[in-house]
């Protein structure tokens, strides 16, 4: 596989995951349990959207067909999105928002840390910048897991529910596709499977503090590799792409 093509695919994966999570967090605007948290979630939405912008812009350059970050974000059909299924799951309640965030933050901290060593200078530069944001997000989400786990009976019940429901989306984080395998061989990206042991340790540590049982069991999860999504993404894209689709060619 051509390296540029592989890196294009890889940046789409990372970019789309940030794009869709940023969108889900943006939906929380004016809907958080209190004002400080509203500001924090909007801030995370902004960080993820910014990461998506940088990654998709780079993806567009690598592809070499003149597509901009907005073309990629707004004008692809559903099956071309390469985000993790985890991040397209809806904001069922605050516990889901937090667990989804915490699972991904734990992952992104490890991934970006490794990507700083990438032989691709652009990717390494982005990872250095993104890591700072990811660590900040992780502190916030993991401390909420602890608070909700050790809070009231209701918060405990809700966070358990969210954890059990979202757990099935985690194997996808550690599954490699052909582009990742090609890039890992060249020292451009880490193998995501290698992140699993440390991810498990970090997750278990927070679960322990929160008094939560870490779910077990592996689930086959398609998603990224096949381009098959859950029912939720179509609705999200219909809303997100609305203006670009309704008024083709308009400049915003």
């Amino acid at each position: 596989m051509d390296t540029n093509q592989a890196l294009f695919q890889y940046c789409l994966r990372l970019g789309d995951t940030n794009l869709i999570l940023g969108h889900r967090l943006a939906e929380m605007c004016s809907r958080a349990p209190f004002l400080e948290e509203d500001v924090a979630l909007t801030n995370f939405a902004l960080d993820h959207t910014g990461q998506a912008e940088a990654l998709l812009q780079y993806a567009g350059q690598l592809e070499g067909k003149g597509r901009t970050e907005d073309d990629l974000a707004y004008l692809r059909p559903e099956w071309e999105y390469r985000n993790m299924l985890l991040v397209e799951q809806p904001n069922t309640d605050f516990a889901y928002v937090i667990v989804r965030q915490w699972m991904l933050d734990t992952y992104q901290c490890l991934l970006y840390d490794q990507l700083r060593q990438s032989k691709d200078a652009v990717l390494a530069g982005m990872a250095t910048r993104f890591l700072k944001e990811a660590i900040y997000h992780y502190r916030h989400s993991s401390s909420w897991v602890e608070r909700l786990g050790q809070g009231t009976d209701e918060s405990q019940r809700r966070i358990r529910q969210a954890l059990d429901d979202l757990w099935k989306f985690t194997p996808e984080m550690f599954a490699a596709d052909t582009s990742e395998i090609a890039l890992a061989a060249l020292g451009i990206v880490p193998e995501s499977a290698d992140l699993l042991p440390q991810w498990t340790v970090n997750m278990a540590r927070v679960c322990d503090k929160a008094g939560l049982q870490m779910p077990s069991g592996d689930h086959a999860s398609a998603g990224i590799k096949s381009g098959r999504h859950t029912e939720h993404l179509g609705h999200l894209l219909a809303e997100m792409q609305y203006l670009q689709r309704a008024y083709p060619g308009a400049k915003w």
Partner: protein
Amino acid sequence: MELQEKLDAFQQYIDAEEKIEPKDWMPDEYRRHCIRQISQHAHSEVIGMQPEGNWITRAPTLRAKKILLAKIQDEGGHGLYLYSAAETLGISRDEMIRQLHEGKAKYSSVFNYPTLNWADIGAIGWLVDGAAVTNQLSLRRTSYGPYSRAMLRICNEESFHQRQGYEIMTKMANGTPEQRRMAQDALDRWWWPALMMFGPHDNNSPRTYNGIVWKIKRAGNDELRQRFIDKTVPQAEFLGLKIPDPQLQWNEATGHYETGEINWDEFHRVISGDGPCNRQRMEHHKRVHEEGAWVREAAEAFARRRKAENLTEAIA
């Protein structure tokens, strides 16, 4: 000291342009006036997140989405400073929110109008933030110290909001015929509500008098409204958009624009709860507040437990 002496000394202090600080003596009416005005201002920032949030998931580019997110985040932050400023007067945020939900505290009526197309996001920045900043610039010199300091911070950010709004309007006004139509439609709907933001004419405004004497307010409603009109009309002309006021004209002699009369029936109707979105905005705020109760309770329970544990450790 007799009450009258205290009042006189208070007035002299204010007349000397000194700031009143939380621990200073102040007349009860001054305290009430500040609480009413600052909490109304805080609630306005927070409720204002709704009409703009209505477009955040439909923002047409990543850049536009980032700017709108940053702007709404700023507004939440303004709400936070302002709630804190009001708390220095001895009212809790919970109490302010309760008063809002019971309809005892108000927020700016302008947020009871809907956002119907993307240009509304431009129009809110340009007109609504433009009107707000006109008022807030004068409030930097308000006599209550914490409010004045909050205004200094807020004004810097509001002028960025106004610029981003005007940038959206510029793109829309110079865009496709549909975009141009959206821009004019947005101006048609937001112009009058923006003028209403300055409140009734000064001769009809019961609270202006005390507010001015105590230098809580630093300029009258009509003066501020005129400042806004004079600044904004040429901006609309530059965009090639038409202000929806057939009586609008330039008065060479006074050096000001003259406008038609504001529809005060509509103004009072919206203030008293009968605007297009009053119920929707309040129901949204109440519902979110109720749905978040379990999270706040969990955080409090956790904090109590932590405190107890630390205490046990300290004793052991």
